[in-house]
């Protein structure tokens, strides 16, 4: 690891100032950033640890659902009685991220800001009508993820919290890589009244909505409603773990499992 200067601001305003330094990086739980630094794949001059900022922490119930602070660790989301009560599918998703030790350190804000194409949380942000609040503005979940490891965040912009709408029914089904436990394909299905959202992670460069699935499920919220439907394999990820065709197949399988799990 190259040398850097470590800073641990206690207010969001101080963090916003510190991140202006050239080549500064924000540090959440560090479960992606620290392995990257260990491999010398990045060379930040400053690491701004967000772990001492009270404004970034906590899980609150809102009118329409939940608001979760950016520096909330995956294990906290997974074990929160509030999350289990309001959006149990979100708690269940969090419990499936990485391994215990990753969940004890990794944070929601870190995960979505990193926007790994195989990360789990992006599917929830999109399917649960998420809104990402930063130190500058609010960004709709549908607009937040713009590409592989790319988001709508501007340089130095800090994620404060994520709001999730409470669905009538929801579930996340994941076909995971057994070694990394990242999603080869993960599908989050959420039903809000007559509206259904189906968000797919792992399959493409960035999370996307399977709109044909949404239409079919809005008419008939049963796994059978997806019979015969598939997503186009063109443009999906292909690597040593799964071909694009296999991923396309998995999207339909995982969507059906999610619908069944949602009940």
């Amino acid at each position: 690891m190259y040398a850097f200067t470590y800073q641990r601001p206690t207010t969001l305003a101080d963090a916003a100032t510190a991140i202006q330094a050239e080549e500064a990086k924000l540090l959440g739980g560090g479960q992606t950033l620290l392995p990257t630094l260990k491999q010398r794949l990045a060379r930040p001059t400053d690491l701004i640890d967000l772990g001492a900022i009270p404004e970034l922490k906590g899980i609150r119930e809102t009118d329409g659902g939940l608001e979760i602070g950016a520096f909330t660790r995956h294990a906290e989301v997974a074990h929160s009685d509030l999350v289990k009560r309001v959006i149990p599918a979100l708690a269940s998703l969090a419990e499936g991220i990485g391994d215990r030790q990753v969940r004890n350190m990794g944070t929601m804000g870190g995960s979505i800001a990193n926007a790994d194409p195989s990360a789990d949380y992006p599917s929830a942000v999109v399917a649960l009508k998420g809104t990402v609040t930063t130190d500058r503005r609010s960004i709709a979940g549908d607009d937040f993820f713009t590409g592989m490891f790319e988001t709508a965040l501007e340089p130095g912009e800090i994620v404060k919290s994520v709001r999730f709408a409470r669905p009538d029914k929801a579930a996340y089904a994941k076909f995971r890589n057994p070694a990394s436990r990242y999603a080869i394909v993960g599908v989050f299905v959420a039903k809000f009244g007559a509206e259904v959202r189906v968000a797919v992670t792992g399959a493409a460069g960035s999370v996307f909505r399977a709109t044909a699935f949404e239409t079919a499920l809005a008419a008939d919220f049963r796994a059978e409603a997806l019979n015969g439907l598939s997503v186009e394999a063109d443009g999906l990820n292909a690597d040593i773990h799964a071909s694009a065709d296999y991923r396309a197949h998995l999207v339909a399988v995982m969507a059906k499992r999610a619908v069944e799990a949602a009940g």
Partner: protein
Amino acid sequence: MSCTVSMTVNGKTVSREVEERTLLVTFLREHLGLTGTHVGCDTSQCGACVVHVDGRSVKSCTTLAVQANGTAVTTIEGLAAADGTLHPMQAAFREHHGLQCGFCTPGMVMSAVDLVRENPNPTEAEIREGLEGNICRCTGYHNIVKAVKAGADAMAGAQATPVAAE
């Protein structure tokens, strides 16, 4: 670029001047001489380095020492009683031959203790899920899982279930 890091390690307050990029595992092994915490990979995947920070298991190779500033850290050296009596989980690993070469064992034990803290009576499936962050290169998982089950029973004060054919 150095800074002062202070924390409680196995009940003792320690304070050292370290480079800011120092990993917690480096701090424990090289600055404090606590070499029971192992480094098995450079990629944050193997779990040999698992310690407890404020009671929760973390990979000390994927935590900066400064991130643990002000916390209470427990390493494998801190599990046994002062008189040398093994922690029930350590005793269960010995009893059930939950190790082959032993390199992964400190991380396995620390992960297992954290798992049982949260789930005092884990099923075999829950144990296997709970140990996903720990890799045994000898592939000795079968007896590790038995050891964790027995260790959980012992920690709960119940009689360890007899295990045949190990």
